């Protein structure tokens, strides 16, 4: 106990023997009081010192930009002169309502979001279920299915562009073996969305499978045992034990995937490199993220881009609230 040793050290300073005990206890008390004040101050303020770097950075690079985007959305600002802001009120927002490209991008984002998220999460569930069995080399599968997650969006999209090539792509060649016609993956309204979604699905399925697997491993074994005693088949066990236990995790992955889908940018940008930010010749796979970039950096209207950003944010909040309400309903009904 170093504190006490410290406190015991000073008596050397003490004067005459009879006076010693009171003097020592007084100085010791002062010392203790000082130490304990310092200690208390440390206990009281150090938590703030530990969290403040994060919050300082957050305010500077997270909160301030978020609010300033809102401020900029009420102005006309050009990319070439970002400091020249002229007030336009809500015009950037009212414009959005008549902007067919915005709604096209919103629709594309929603469609790509659904066709990339739903199959992805369902496959992830299935794979997680299999991984939850006793397996040989289980670590191997887990690591390998993270390889797409380690691959950068740019690298993944570029190789899928080749695989999805209309004339010489491997996927069309493969489909041709079954007598199917060549598919124009870049220009088809639906096909292009499917192709862009494929990149997303490829990169994220394994990652989500691992998250589901972790949740499955946390399900208490006795739930399965009692279900088995009741004569439930394995499929029934999956439906009535596994799925309900995974509900919070599934909701969590849905939220994360929704946010991810709303941010899709690099995949559609690189999917047709020569069309760039327009997202295909007919804007058929232009997402909101890409449209924001087109408005802000190609058309150079930062004010309008800011309004798009905030509209996206508001839509996300609405989606989040709906998600929350649904999950509460589900919880209440179970």
């Amino acid at each position, binding site marked *: 106990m170093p504190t006490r040793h410290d406190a015991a050290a000073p008596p050397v300073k003490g004067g005459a023997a009879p006076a010693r005990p009171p003097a020592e206890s007084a100085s010791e008390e002062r010392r203790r009081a000082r130490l304990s004040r310092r200690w208390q101050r440390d206990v009281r303020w150090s938590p703030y010192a530990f969290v403040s770097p994060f919050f300082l950075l957050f305010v500077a690079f997270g909160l301030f930009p978020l609010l300033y*985007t809102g401020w900029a959305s009420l102005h006309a600002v050009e990319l070439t002169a970002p400091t020249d802001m002229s007030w336009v009120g809500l015009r950037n927002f009212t414009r959005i309502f008549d902007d067919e490209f915005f709604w096209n991008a919103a629709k594309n984002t929603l469609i790509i979001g659904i066709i990339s998220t739903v199959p992805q999460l369902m496959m992830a569930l299935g794979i997680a279920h299999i991984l939850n069995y*006793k397996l040989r080399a289980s670590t191997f599968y887990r690591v390998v299915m993270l390889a*797409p997650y380690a691959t950068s969006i740019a690298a993944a999209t570029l190789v899928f562009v080749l695989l999805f090539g209309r004339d010489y792509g491997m996927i069309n060649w493969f489909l041709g073996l079954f007598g199917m016609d060549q598919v124009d993956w870049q220009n088809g309204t639906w096909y292009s969305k499917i192709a862009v979604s494929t990149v997303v699905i490829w990169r994220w399925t394994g990652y989500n499978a691992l998250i589901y697997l972790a949740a499955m491993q946390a399900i208490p074994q006795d739930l399965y045992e009692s279900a088995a005693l009741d004569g439930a088949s394995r499929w029934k066990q999956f439906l009535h034990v596994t799925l309900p236990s995974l509900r919070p995790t599934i909701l969590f992955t849905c939220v994360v995937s929704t946010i991810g889908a709303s941010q899709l940018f690099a995949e559609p940008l690189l999917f047709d490199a020569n069309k760039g930010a327009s997202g295909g010749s007919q804007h058929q796979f232009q997402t909101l993220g890409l449209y924001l970039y087109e408005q802000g950096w190609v058309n150079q209207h930062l004010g309008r881009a800011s309004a798009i950003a905030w509209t996206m944010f508001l839509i996300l909040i609405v989606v989040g609230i709906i998600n929350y309400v649904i999950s509460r309903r589900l919880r209440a009904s179970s």
Partner: protein
Amino acid sequence: MTTTITKPPADAAPEPPENGRRRRGPKAARAGGQHHAGPVAYVILIAFTLVSLFPLFWTAVAASRDNARLAETPPPFWFGANLFDKIEVAWKDANLGEAFLNTTIVAGVSSLTIVFLSTIAGFAFAKLKFRGRGALMLIVIGTMMVPPQLQVIPLYMLVAKLDWTDQLQAVILPSLVSAFGVFFMRQYLLQALPDEIIEAARVDGASSWRVIWHVVFPAARPAMAVLGMLMFVQTWNDFLWPFLVLTQLGNPTVQVAVAGLGRGYTPDQALIMAGALLSTLPLLLVFAIFGKQIVGGIMQGAVKG
């Protein structure tokens, strides 16, 4: 005292997943392996494995060919002779040497800083009592939900104003905010760090900083390693923001450099694939070496999250 401090990391450090499995107890072990997988399960798994790996394999195959061969049907399934030529050209054309150096600096600085800041903040949230803790934690969680598009416009204005275009600090600074990191470390430390150890150190008169250095860091080491790797991967692959503030021929990161390879009317496909391959290779190596730990980290974060 010293023995108590060093003991937890000594057995926890090499194997974060082990750690998690042990805490969940023997029950989880049984739940994880109640039935043996049948042949169908293996077929599905192996098919999935092949689908996961094939695009990567084929990236290398395509990089070893040329436009003429890639425009034939059936497409090539095995390596040609051009791999090293294409890699060499891609390296020069896309400014990849500089790009690798830049990305290593960006990803290294940000992941180290994030790990350090997240550990101390996560420790405060997990183990220290203070006013406003709950509200601040809610802010952290809320921050994870804000899409980056809402931040890029003002940050871009700022970068333009400071004349930081093509400078690495423009990419590094905003990337240091990681709510996920704080959350991840908090979740880990809640369970991995017993209150008694902190109290014992306190009774010994240790200041908060000493507690951080001698108790928290050793106990958090496995989670710090995993978070560091996850953040390294994330910053390495970050696209939108570097793409906005760095230019391909100025001072690019790998992603920006590789994205620029695909332009033009008759792009050299093999060259693009060589660039894509190079850009991903370092991360694949990291995963090949630390895959088990990363898997464990992702799964651990998931259960508690």
